[in-house]
């Protein structure tokens, strides 16, 4: 039974290809794009906002059951872009881990610690053949006691970085280009500016104006560090503000 570069198994499990690449990990990234959703996250001076599309494929579906935004603890949120089933298992494990952390150490799990945990778990899937990488990019947001608002992105390869703003999903690159221009001079966005930058980034990249029911918005604010999903009315207010501004 010879493996190595023969047999093409480098495409089926996470072993190295002759160029030193991991095809399974690269395919996992493609699976994230294939989900057809784009997500955006923006970090402001004292708040973090994440926005994602809400695509309901069938009118008979119960809209309220379709979500990509998950509270992990009261203070930590996770936006999962990609395969929904993989997202749910990731969220389940993250919730468990965060709860254990709180129990074990007596204080809330910080954003970067949770992100590192998610990333380390993803790394295991890239090194052990028995489990495939998850087809999910996770954006974790929260307010850190010392560092303030934090936005981290964890990908199937096991990388995780803190971001001032970022994107994931089918139009990831266009969104990042848009955000790079906006964040060039390190602006310190207020809460409203943060939310509106995130929503308008999504609108610009997808080239359509949304109705409040077509997107999901999650926020954390420094003055009230609870992770909250915005209600339709609140999203409407922001959408109106954006269209009046333009």
């Amino acid at each position, binding site marked *: 039974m010879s493996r190595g570069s023969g047999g093409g198994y480098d495409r089926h499990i996470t072993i190295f290809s002759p160029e030193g690449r991991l095809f399974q990990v690269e395919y996992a990234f493609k699976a994230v794009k294939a989900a057809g959703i784009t997500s955006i996250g923006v970090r402001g001076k004292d708040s973090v906002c994440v926005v994602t599309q809400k695509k309901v494929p069938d009118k008979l579906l119960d809209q309220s059951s379709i979500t990509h935004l998950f509270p992990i603890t009261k203070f930590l949120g996770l936006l999962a872009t990609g395969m929904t089933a993989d997202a749910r298992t990731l969220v389940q494990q993250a919730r468990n881990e965060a709860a254990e952390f709180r129990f074990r150490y007596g204080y809330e799990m910080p954003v970067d610690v949770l992100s590192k945990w998610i990333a380390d778990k993803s*790394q295991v899937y890239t090194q052990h*053949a028995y*489990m495939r990488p998850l087809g999910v990019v996770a954006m974790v947001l929260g307010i850190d006691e010392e*560092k303030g608002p934090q936005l981290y992105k964890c990908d199937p390869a096991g990388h995780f970085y803190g971001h001032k703003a970022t994107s994931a999903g089918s139009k990831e690159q266009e969104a*990042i280009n848009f955000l790079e221009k906006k964040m060039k001079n390190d602006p310190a966005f207020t809460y409203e500016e943060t939310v509106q930058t995130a929503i308008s980034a999504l609108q610009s990249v997808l080239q359509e104006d949304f109705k409040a029911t077509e997107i999901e918005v999650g926020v954390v604010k420094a003055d009230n560090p609870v992770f909250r999903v915005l209600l339709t009315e609140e999203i409407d207010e922001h959408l109106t503000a954006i269209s009046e501004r333009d």
Partner: protein
Amino acid sequence: MGDSQYSFSLTTFSPSGKLVQIEHALTAVGSGQTSLGIKAANGVVIATEKKLPSILVDEASVQKIQCLTPNIGVVYSGMGPDFRVLVRKSRKQAEQYHRLYKEPIPVTQLVRETAAVMQEFTQSGGVRPFGVSLLVAGYDDNGPQLYQVDPSGSYFSWKASAMGKNVSNAKTFLEKRYTDDMELDDAVHTAILTLKEGFEGQISGKNIEIGIIGTDRKFRQVSALTLSPFLNILLMEKWPFGFKKCQSLVLTPAEIDDYLAEVE
């Protein structure tokens, strides 16, 4: 290690007697960002490029050079996630040694144990080799030491070495510049010059990382960011009882830029 479904090794011999998965892992290392290390008469310096995928990434959240013990630091070229696993395992091994012998682990021992982990992953069932090469820099009773560990698990002690994209140019440069009686400051300058050789774009305190250890035997990261020391300790995971916390005195952007100015 690995599930029973995969109780066979994925790294097997080719007809020519090579372990191709390890060769591919080395290719992965060779396409990683350049890093290098120089052993001076009174210390060791390790340095690396820190190119981030976008300006939107918060540099403060990324730290490529890590402390394994208060007097041993490490840098890598290759896959970041694999590096994190090795750092975690090495730290634990160092701590276990300390618990048993009540003294800091010598550099050679730690390198040996880390290399053994990397070798395990080339032979065990259901896993692939690590896609990183490490440069371990430390100062113990045997003086300053620099080791390079490869994905195969083999390691060698080096006077100066480089890894990653620009390895051949960097090594040629180091061969010319290296002298056995180099001082630590000279070594830092040489390290920066070597990085500059292959650097695309403008080098600055924000897109390189430097770690140094001198006769005080305290590993320091000269980072471009004014992180508070406390923050840096948090980034390095909880440190167990009875073992001094890694004193990463993080220096200001000014310090790296001072070095850069002297170099020019």
